[in-house]
């Protein structure tokens, strides 16, 4: 389908697809196996000017928006949903600075992210604060010109690899959600530690770690926005980043379809290619249709956000929900179409299925997304 991309958007798509095919695809199985972080690919992204596509031009980026980010994430995730996360999760960690950072903070941090010199991460989740972000235990205590952070963040994507962390911590426990604030913490700050790398089912090359603060002292200039804005920062960040997760799911799903089409054309049973069987054809047709629907929704949501629309929570949740469910279904079907081979690690589709699962879980489970959508619907109904 023609989504009427601008010339620049087409270039981003072409280039990211080229990177996915030539650089990521050949190493994806290796990184999946070892669980190592793919720094060599991050270097390629940096050299190709991809790291800064969603960062404003005045801070060294290409000045694109959510759509550009989605286009790139989709293509890179076609190559590997785990490796692409090093890029996409940096976006998640960077949005708080783009959206709420002051001029000084933006000048200090964005150019290095745009050039690919540094990665970023977003640290919100804790052991007892997953879907219920109100349960955050990490505290930030103000002491003179500094804040002192204490607590443990869990499952932080890019943890340990990123240089720049956007962290949500409680500045006033009594105020509940209104007592949370967002901060920038740089790697190397005394009192900032990283836990062991998690051994995951999928997206295995992405780094997922605990981020631990033990009397971690940061200058008060690192506060994002104002005290008490922490949850607003988190929610606005997610509103902007969910199309990115959706795009990751979309890329994984598209790859599964491409693999399935190629394989069913090649694989012969009963003297003919299995793609000549109607049962197989119907599966392929359903996979393709749901992928295209997911793509349309993501691009539309991204365009809506880029146009400056206000109430984006619902549509942003919808594309994350839909695309990730599609990815799970399509990758499962792809494994089915590959038959026994699909279950083997020598073939690429079982990895796609493992990688797809996380997209239904993180950045708000799909149950939470449904909640977001429903509450928006009810609110609209009452208005």
């Amino acid at each position, binding site marked *: 389908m023609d989504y009427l991309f601008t*010339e*620049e958007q087409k*270039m981003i798509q072409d*280039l990211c697809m*080229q990177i996915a095919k030539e650089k990521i695809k050949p190493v994806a199985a290796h990184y999946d196996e070892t669980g190592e972080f793919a720094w060599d690919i991050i270097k390629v992204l940096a050299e*190709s*000017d*991809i790291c800064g*596509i969603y960062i404003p031009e005045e801070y060294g980026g290409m000045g694109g928006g959510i759509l550009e980010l989605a286009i790139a994430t989709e293509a890179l995730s076609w190559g590997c949903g785990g490796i692409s996360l090093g890029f996409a999760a940096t976006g998640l960690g960077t949005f708080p600075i783009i959206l709420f950072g002051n001029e000084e903070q933006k000048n200090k941090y964005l150019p290095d992210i745009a050039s690919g010199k540094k990665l970023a991460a977003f640290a919100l989740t804790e052991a007892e604060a997953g879907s219920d972000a109100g349960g955050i235990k990490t505290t930030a205590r103000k002491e003179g010109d500094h804040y002192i952070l204490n607590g443990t963040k869990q499952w932080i994507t890019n943890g340990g690899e990123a240089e720049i962390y956007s962290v949500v911590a409680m500045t006033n426990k009594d105020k509940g959600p209104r007592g949370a604030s967002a901060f920038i913490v740089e790697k190397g700050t005394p009192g900032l530690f990283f836990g062991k790398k998690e051994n995951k089912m999928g997206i295995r090359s992405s780094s997922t770690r605990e981020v631990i603060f033990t009397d971690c002292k940061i200058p008060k200039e690192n506060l994002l926005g104002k005290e008490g804005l922490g949850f607003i920062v988190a929610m606005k960040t997610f509103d902007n980043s969910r199309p990115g997760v959706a795009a990751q799911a979309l890329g994984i799903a598209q790859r599964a379809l491409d693999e399935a089409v190629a394989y069913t054309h090649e694989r012969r049973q009963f003297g003919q290619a299995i793609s000549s069987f109607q049962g197989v054809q119907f599966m392929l047709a359903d996979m393709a249709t749901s992928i295209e629907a997911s793509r349309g929704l993501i691009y539309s949501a991204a365009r809506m956000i880029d146009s400056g629309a206000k109430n984006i929570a619902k549509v942003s949740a919808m594309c994350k929900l839909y695309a990730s469910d599609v990815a799970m279904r399509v990758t499962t079907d792809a494994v089915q179409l590959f038959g026994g081979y699909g279950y083997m690690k020598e073939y690429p589709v079982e990895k796609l299925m493992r990688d797809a699962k996380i997209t239904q879980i993180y950045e708000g489970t799909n149950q939470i997304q449904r909640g977001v959508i429903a509450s928006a619907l009810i609110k609209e109904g009452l208005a």
Partner: protein
Amino acid sequence: MNIIVLIKQVPETTDVKIDPVTNTLKREGVQSIINPFDVYAIEEGIRLRERAGAGKVTVITMGPPQALEALREAVSMGCDDAILLSDRKFAGSDTWATSYTLSKAIKKLGKFDVIICGKQASDGDTAQVGPGVSTHLDIPQVTYVKKIEEITIEKARVERMTEEGYDIMETPLPALFTVVKEINVPRLPSLKGKMRAKKIEIPVWTAESLECDGKKIGLDGSPTRVMKVFTPAPREGGEMLSGEPEEVAKKLVGLLRDAVLG
């Protein structure tokens, strides 16, 4: 450092298949690409410029107007300038005429320190144009370069791949190098490079603007002629051996006995 990279646009040979029915080349979907070896030349040119910290990389190709695409791709990787040599009078050039034409363009361009080419083109596989250009220009050459160890504005020390290993060669500059795959890992284009490539004005030089001797270009300037082109008989399908590993291994050793002992 001023670097000239010579490239050729070739069909993506992986797509060239023989139609089993008509026994002719199937061309559907055959795309044009930069000759794979020339991509290493482009990368090495850009690296030399980066190493020197100054200068520029000019990429030149001779070919039909479509070859502009190859030049734009080279610019998107980081080449500074591009020039297309295109003229119907160039049609039918063999390696003699091609290297003459390229050398005329290089002379017109003026000052340069290094010329880099891929070791050969994937369609013709001649490996003759690089040495031909250095001869027309009367400059030293090193072919099959796998590493540029040291380079200054006066001279370079390079490694030339041989059948047994490699030779370490020293050459004064300007010189021409043809490079092999081992020399580097080419970068992909950058987004800024792609945008630049989209906009860049690429001059087209003709036989006239190069002040070519009409007897030395195109078909007239080419001592060789293609007499006929044909498709080789496809290799006959062989024999499949089956059985347990011991069994097939024994069978095969029996079948190969003569070849191995001979």
